C-alpha cells in the first residue's frame, strides 16, 4: 500500500517536553559502549568547557524518534511498521545536548515516495530548548521494505 502523500509538509510539535537526565545519558553511553568521561563525570565535562555532562551525538534520536511516532503510527499514513527499517540518518548540531536540558521541537514530514517496491518517508525534527534555543536538527529516512507493491514478500 502506498503511503498517503498528503502528509508531506505536515508539522507536529512535540507532545511534551523531554527533560534530559544525567543518569539517562550514562545509561545511553553504556548501551552504545562508549566510555568517554564527559558523558558521566561532571568535572570532566566542565574541564572540556561544558556546564554539565553532555550526551553522545546520537542521543537526540531518543526524543526525535518518539516525536516521529506521531506520524509513523498514524493509521491514516498507511505505514506497516513491522516492515520498517532505518534508511538514513543525519544530525546537524548547534550544540551538544546536556543534562538538565528541557527539549522540545517540531517534526516536519519532508517527503514521501515509493522506490523499488519500498515506501520511503523523510522527516526532520528541529530540536530546541523550551525557550527556543536551537540545539540539533535530526533528519531521518524510514523505509518500509516491499510494502509499495501488493503481494511482494
Amino acid at each position, binding site marked *: 500500500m502506498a503511503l498517503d502523500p498528503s502528509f508531506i509538509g505536515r508539522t507536529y510539535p512535540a507532545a511534551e517536553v523531554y527533560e534530559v537526565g544525567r543518569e*539517562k545519558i550514562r545509561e*545511553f553511553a553504556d548501551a552504545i559502549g562508549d566510555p568517554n568521561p564527559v558523558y558521566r563525570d561532571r568535572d570532566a565535562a566542565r574541564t572540556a568547557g561544558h556546564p554539565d555532562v553532555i550526551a553522545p551525538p*546520537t542521543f537526540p534520536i531518543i526524543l526525535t524518534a518518539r516525536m516521529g511516532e506521531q506520524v509513523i503510527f498514524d493509521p491514516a499514513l498507511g505505514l506497516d511498521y513491522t516492515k520498517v*527499517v532505518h534508511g538514513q*540518518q543525519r544530525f546537524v548540531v548547534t550544540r551538544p545536548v546536556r543534562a538538565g536540558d528541557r527539549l522540545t521541537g517540531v517534526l516536519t514530514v519532508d517527503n514521501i515516495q515509493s522506490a523499488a517496491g519500498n515506501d520511503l518517508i523523510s522527516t526532520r525534527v528541529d530540536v530546541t530548548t523550551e525557550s527556543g534555543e536551537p540545539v540539533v536538527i535530526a533528519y531521518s529516512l524510514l523505509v518500509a521494505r516491499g510494502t509499495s507493491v501488493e503481494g511482494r514478500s
Partner: protein
Amino acid sequence: MTDAGGTNSIPDYDSVVEGTELPEVRTRVSRADLIRYCGASGDFNVIHWNERSARSVGLPDVIAHGMLTMATAVRIVTDWTGDPSAVAEFAVRFSRPVPVPDDDEGSELVISARVAKKLPDSRVRVDIVARCGPDKVLSMARAVVVLP
C-alpha cells in the same frame, strides 16, 4: 558492548593533513547489547530482539539497530577529538543490516575513517567506513568536525 579501546590524541586544525587515518575502533555487538540499546533508546522494534519476527519480514536474523551502528561509527571521531562536541554534523546511510546471531560472540563492527577534506572555519570532513565481516554496513558515512 566490548570496548576494544581508543586513543585520546587531540588534533589541531593547522597540523591535520588530508588523508590522515583515524585510529580504528572495533567493538562486538551481542544480543544482550541489543536488548540494552532497546531499553536505553526506547526503540523496541521486534526486529532487534525477536528472531521469529525478523525472519518473518525477510531479514536474515535479528539485526542491530542502525542507530547503534551509527553511535559506534561516530565514536571513531569522538575518540579522536576527545570532546564529542566537536561533531557539528554527522550523516549515514544504512546500506546493509548487521545480523546478530544468538551466540556468545555476537557480531564484530570494525570502524575506520580518514580526514577526507579540510574545510573553512577550522572544520574537517571525516569519511567513515563501518564493516561487519565483508559487508560495508554504512555508506556515505561522514562527519564534519570542528578542530581547535
